[in-house]
């Protein structure tokens, strides 16, 4: 057969594509369960980081079971529990719905000291792509205990700094509501937050748009959790 002819070329290309496609499809299918497990472990690790617990990957599942275990659930806009598994909520889909139709996952962490922290899941948009994270709140429903954020593709050294501990640690002790109970959220202030301001953290030089995205993300998601947080606050007085 003429190896430079058209029909040979077509046959060669067809066989090659079929072989490669079969191989890759097979590999992808057989590794899928392991990959899904890894993603879940990474998510649990993020959740733990928001209550300032840092453990190596192989201990994440045990610690998660200890501290949170089954006490995760979904609430709706009015703060009532609804059916479903918090870990299975697809935030990417949720943020496209209007606030009163959204599912809001909550993870209840019981720390070694016996304190209960409520972990909220947030998602929004940065400069180049999505941002997401977890914010843990004390049982007064307003004071932030810890936070962790990550991003898909913010600029390294600039916007990507939101994934840094030093940035995230600033959130500890900040307040979501003001003294009169109004939702204020946390502002990310360019040039540095004023001393003692419990509703602001320092921004990142060169990462202004990412910081604005983060600010919007927090405000929007806290709006959704508002009723839930107020319920916690009320319960803590009882």
């Amino acid at each position, binding site marked *: 057969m003429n190896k430079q002819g058209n029909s040979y070329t077509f046959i060669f290309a067809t066989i*090659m594509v079929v072989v490669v496609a079969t191989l890759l499809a097979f*590999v992808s299918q057989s*590794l899928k369960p392991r990959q899904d497990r890894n993603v879940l472990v990474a998510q649990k690790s993020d959740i733990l980081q928001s209550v300032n617990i840092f453990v190596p990957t192989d201990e994440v599942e045990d610690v998660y079971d200890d501290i949170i275990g089954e006490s995760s659930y979904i609430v709706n806009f009015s703060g009532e529990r609804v059916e479903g598994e918090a870990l299975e909520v697809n935030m990417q889909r949720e943020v496209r719905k209007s606030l009163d139709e959204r599912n809001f996952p909550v993870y209840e962490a019981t720390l070694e000291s016996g304190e209960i922290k409520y972990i909220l899941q947030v998602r929004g948009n940065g400069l180049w792509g999505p941002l997401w994270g977890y914010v843990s709140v004390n049982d007064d429903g307003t004071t932030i205990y810890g936070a962790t954020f990550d991003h898909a593709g913010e600029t390294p050294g600039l916007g990507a700094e939101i994934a840094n501990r030093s940035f995230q640690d600033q959130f500890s002790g900040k307040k979501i509501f003001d003294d009169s109970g109004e939702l204020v959220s946390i502002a990310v202030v360019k040039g540095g937050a004023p001393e003692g301001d419990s509703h602001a953290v320092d921004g990142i030089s060169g990462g202004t748009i990412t910081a604005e995205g983060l600010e919007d993300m927090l405000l929007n998601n806290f709006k959704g959790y508002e009723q839930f947080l107020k319920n916690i606050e009320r319960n803590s007085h009882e």
Partner: protein
Amino acid sequence: MSNDKEPLFSAKNLKLITTPLGKHNPITIQVLGVCSALAVTAKLEPAIVLAISVVFVMLFANLTISLLRDTIPSRIRIIVQLVVIASLVILVDEILEAFAYDVSRQLSVFVGLIITNCIIMGRLEAFALANKPWPSILDGVGNAAGYGVILIIVGFVRELFGSGTLSLPGVGTFQVVPEQFYSMGYENNGFMILPPMALIVVGIIIWIQRSKDKSLIESN
């Protein structure tokens, strides 16, 4: 064909492995594949993982192309090479995601970018298409190792001086610079973990290599 078989590691074959490590190093001499060398070397661990991945991709890409070299229609040979490289890279990516998730998150797009690493396609086109499988494997391993060695050296220097630690795949991160140094006023050089320092470290390696082997210096 002659009857006496060439030994597997004859002097000629060994040269295929050793020259890319030194005299024909893809990064320091041919200056190929530099962008990934800059991007993943802030820590040692991803540098090692990427080096191993490239060795894997290159070995099997060279082998496959060499085995198929008499059947590939020359008009679509570049596409065939690309398909072979791309599927191997996807394979590596899937395996990393399943077995080394943390590292695969760190390497993010750079595993996928192995596809565009000019060293690989260069070797397929220049060597594997015209040579038997065994020399092709050696050539592939040699070139990938030459690339990997530089990656690892740069990663080592940058992590040691930038973070004071060294990280190894599967083992974890070690504090190398002792605590006393810090209390005596030593500080990590934060500049080291930024991409420009990778370029400077590669530059220094090139400088050292050329001052040792004068034949590498171009005459102007």
